[in-house]
């Protein structure tokens, strides 16, 4: 694999994770638990979808085969998507959506902090931009985790159940393969072991503050690095891709 191939695959993976998460979260728009929270999550969704756009545009440029960001988003099947599985899982109730979001915001916070130092100027630029936004996201979702966990018995149970169900999908966030190896040597990609240590520390502190129990010895799901997904991804793509596939020349 050439460095350029690896850079394309890497950027695509990051773009896919943001795109699928943004698409999933957008289901809450207009359905949030109350107005301010609806606006907050919709703003977060917008940032994430915007980051996906920046990343997929760059992936298309790196690939150099005259595919556009829209082609990448709308004309690939689930087996050619590399988003982390946690992003495609159904939203569930609000506690579950927020617990997942805090897990990912915390990952993104430390990940983009590292990526901002990348030797690839475009990735570093996108990371510098995103980290400012993610800082706000994490502050918001972490404070909700605390309120759910340390709130009523019902909110506590919902947050704990979400945590127990979602934890098995966190291992994948830190998986590295040939793509990462090639790009770490070039000073482009992030060594996810560095991110993992910081993420674990933050999550441990947050869960403790929230009176939630961190799941231990969990079997970790895997597959997205190879394009293997849960059954939920294909349904998201079906909805997201229906229009551009039906009207391939549609402009708006």
């Amino acid at each position, binding site marked *: 694999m050439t460095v350029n191939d690896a850079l394309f695959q890497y950027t695509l993976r990051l773009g896919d994770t943001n795109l699928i998460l943004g698409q999933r979260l957008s289901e809450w728009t207009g359905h949030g638990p109350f107005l*301010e*929270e609806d*606006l*907050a999550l*919709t*703003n*977060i*969704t*917008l*940032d*994430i*979808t*915007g*980051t996906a*756009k*920046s990343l997929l545009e760059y992936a298309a440029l790196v690939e150099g085969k005259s595919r556009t960001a829209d082609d990448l988003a709308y004309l690939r099947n689930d087996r050619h998507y590399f988003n982390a599985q946690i992003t495609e899982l159904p939203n569930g109730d609000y506690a579950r959506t927020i617990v997942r979001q805090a897990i990912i915001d915390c990952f993104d916070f430390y990940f983009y902090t590292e990526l901002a130092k990348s030797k690839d*100027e*475009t990735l*570093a*630029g*996108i990371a*510098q*931009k*995103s980290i*400012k*936004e993610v*800082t*706000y996201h994490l*502050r*918001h979702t972490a404070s909700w985790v605390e309120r759910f966990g340390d709130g009523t018995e019902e909110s506590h149970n919902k947050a704990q159940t979400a945590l127990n169900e979602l934890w098995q999908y966190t291992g994948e966030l830190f998986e590295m393969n040939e793509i990462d190896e090639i790009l770490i040597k070039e000073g482009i990609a992030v060594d996810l072991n560095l991110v993992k240590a910081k993420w674990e520390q933050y999550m441990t502190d947050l869960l403790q503050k929230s009176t939630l129990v961190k799941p231990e010895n969990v079997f970790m799901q895997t597959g997205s690095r190879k394009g293997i997904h849960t059954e939920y991804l294909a349904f998201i793509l079906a909805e997201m891709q229906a229009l551009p596939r039906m009207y391939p020349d549609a402009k708006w």
Partner: protein
Amino acid sequence: MISKEQILSLLSEIPDPEIPVISIIELGVIRDISIIDNASISLKITPTYSGCPAMKQIEDDVRKKLTENGFTNITIITIYSPPWTTDWINAEAKEKLRKYGIAPPENTTEDKSWLTGKIKSIACPRCKSQNTKLISQFGSTACKALYQCSECLEPFDYFKCI
């Protein structure tokens, strides 16, 4: 040949699509202008927020303005580095925001005290009272937070520091 100052003054006529009291130049999103000749120009533009829907509008407005002024070959490149910051909004533009009813960004982004929860008080843009409270970190657009004044009771937007 048309000068950079003339281009800047042309672009200063374009209002921000979401906050029309300030221009896109005052917003600080135009990062570089290179004039090739009287028909060709290349501009670098940087987004305020990753998902800001106004960016497309700004790009379209810039194209329209330049086309009206004789340019036929317009290149607009989006750059991400250095990332946009509210520090690029100058004092004059901040005053325009305040008059419009949006509390301008109070701190420089160098000041990270808000990260630890120590948020400086934001003055109400209407009655100037410091007795205000945060309703939500996220407001009507990506760049704003929602506050309420405890004196005059009016809710207001605050342009957050990033």
